[in-house]
């Protein structure tokens, strides 16, 4: 590890010297190829060496590290409880379970309705046969209370976290796929095409965000549901992040275009061009390692925005499809419950607390990442 700064310095020296070598001497082909190979190994080593330094810089930022730890432990808990929550998230307790306040003791529902529900689930049925717990009724974990339909908030909040993060990640990858490609192509082609492409981005900035999301969602619903074989719930979630990602790539396109434009002027790209590397090779081997930082930062910036957007769409009633929980939907449902009957605090406190915790942790992590990748900003 201790030798990495030296490696970087060595490779930088080589970059500086490289164009001079090609300008002054005309070496034979074999020698030239050797030189190129030599330089590429140097590029690789500097690329590998750069990332640990960024990582070390990130680790020095205590706030960012704490946020990352909080975020990963939340995800870990969500994953651990996933087998239980997929079973429980939509099970209702109608016997004193509706809007039941939080309690440490589990809530036992002995009504035939709960038992009937239980018998509808094949794996729960098997469970009954072995443990014979059917006599005791249905045991609900009510640590975080129950919602309007008597469902346990505890087993809804963890899958909700995963769904919200999934929508965020999906939207972020959409914005990488469209935005980074758009920006890079505009910058590399240049000229009139560049101008037209960036004008198009300007025009899209002028469209009201919410309108484009809704129209995209309406346009995509039928084709995507068909494509996914009529699985309406899955299609509903996928459409959501495609619609959000489809309108949040604009900033990414601008940033990547600027980065590629400035990278194009760098001496090492010039050197690669002089040594006869193709455009694709330059893009992949020389520019992409330098673009990875900004792409990652702006993609992670999209995640919290997408989660907020999804909560807004849930509030409109066009978020994730009905029984599926997402943090935004839980918060929106909670707000409705509080609006009409003041007092059901747990329906709003826990989902909103989780939402705020997730978004704050995400924002701090992103800030830390940005500082680590680009110390100038």
């Amino acid at each position, binding site marked *: 590890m201790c030798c990495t700064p030296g490696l970087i310095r060595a490779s930088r020296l080589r970059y500086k010297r490289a164009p001079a070598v090609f300008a002054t001497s005309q070496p034979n082909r074999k020698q030239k190829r050797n030189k190129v190979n030599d330089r590429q190994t140097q590029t690789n080593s500097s690329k590998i060496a750069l990332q640990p330094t960024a990582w070390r810089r990130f680790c020095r930022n205590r706030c960012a590290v704490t946020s990352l730890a909080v975020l990963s432990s939340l995800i870990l808990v969500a994953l651990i409880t996933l087998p239980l929550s997929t079973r429980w998230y939509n099970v209702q307790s109608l016997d004193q379970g509706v809007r039941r306040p939080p309690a440490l003791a589990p809530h036992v529902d002995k009504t035939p309705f709960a038992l009937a529900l239980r018998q509808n689930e094949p794996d729960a049925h098997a469970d009954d046969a072995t443990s014979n717990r059917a006599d005791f009724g249905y045991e609900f974990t009510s640590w975080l209370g129950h919602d309007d339909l008597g469902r346990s908030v505890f087993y809804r909040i963890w899958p909700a976290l995963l769904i919200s993060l999934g929508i965020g990640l999906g939207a972020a990858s959409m914005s990488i796929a469209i935005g980074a490609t758009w920006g890079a192509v505009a910058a590399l082609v240049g000229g009139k095409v560049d101008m037209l492409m960036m*004008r198009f981005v*300007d*025009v*899209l*900035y*002028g*469209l*009201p965000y*919410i*309108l*484009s999301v*809704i*129209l995209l969602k*309406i*346009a995509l619903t*039928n084709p995507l549901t068909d494509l996914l074989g009529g699985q309406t719930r899955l299609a509903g979630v996928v459409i959501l992040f495609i619609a959000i990602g489809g309108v949040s790539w604009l900033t990414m396109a601008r940033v990547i275009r600027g980065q590629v434009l400035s990278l194009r002027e760098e001496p090492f790209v010039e050197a690669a061009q002089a040594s006869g590397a193709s455009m694709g090779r330059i893009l992949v081997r020389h520019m992409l390692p330098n673009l990875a930082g900004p792409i990652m930062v702006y993609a992670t910036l999209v995640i*919290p925005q997408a989660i*907020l957007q999804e*909560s*807004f769409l849930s*509030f*409109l009633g*066009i978020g994730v499809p009905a029984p599926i929980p997402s943090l*935004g939907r839980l*918060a*929106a449902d909670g*707000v409705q419950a*509080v*609006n009409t009957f*003041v007092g059901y605090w747990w329906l*709003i406190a826990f989902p*909103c607390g989780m*939402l*705020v915790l997730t*978004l*704050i942790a995400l*924002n701090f992590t992103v800030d830390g990442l940005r500082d680590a990748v680009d110390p100038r900003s």
Partner: protein
Amino acid sequence: MMPMLVRRLFWGAVTIACIYTLTFLMVITVPGNPFRQSERNMPPEAERALRVRYNMDDNWSYFVEFLSGAVRGDFGPSFTYSDWTCNQIISEAFPISAMIGLLAILIAIVIGVPTGVIAATKRDTAWDFGALALVLVGISLPTFVTGTFLLILFAVHLQWAPIGGWGTLAHLPLPALTLSLPFTAYIARLTRVGMLDVMGSDFIRTARAKGCDERTIVWKHAFKIAFLPVLSYLGPATAQAMTGSFVVEKVFGVPGLGQHFVNAALNLDPGLIMSTVLVFSALLVAMNVAVDVLYAWADPRITAAV
């Protein structure tokens, strides 16, 4: 100055035309027929008659008719609100949203800018962390949650404001405050970053060296430059705030313009979609031109460059 203004206005008009075309394309490609929203299908003759009434018998003539109407300031009839023209809807809702939006932007500047400056000058103290907390709440709580909290606190418990609706001045502050929170947070963040950037530069050191007192340095020398990014953010932000927010209008029961953006899209009402988009983009372009003019006034080097 004048040539720049003319050029900006020209490009603004081109941008609006492009936005109009794009919206039109989206509206006609999105599946769903505004004539088939109800359960019963109407007889073909009636549909044809309606299409003639709304100039929708073919796409191209609708495109031209709507555009020429819009240029003359007439957006035509609405589909879903069949007794209303789009002009009536917008002229009723826009002043309300504009009032709330302008007040929200004013609150955002009045709270956000000093917060950012204080956070930057008292870096890493309790002030900085307090500002950070405000920013984080503004960024990471959805408006429907903050709005509901404010409503419960000020309208239900303290009874300082009416619970909802519109009509008197007392209805104004709560929606404006709710709407301003994300803008406040963003402005505070921009100001803080800008101030930190400027405070490290050479001319500030010079000002300190010649014995300038700290308040003059912060507010007279540094702030003028740190405010420029905030200024360019204010253009689109004002346009956005003035065209209303669905959430704020729903939480506080305000009959503003934001609900029409959402409802027009959900009902696939072509006339209303295009007229709201045109209002928004015209406002956006106007605000951006205004910001450019202010920029040139604040930083004379810009005019020299343009």
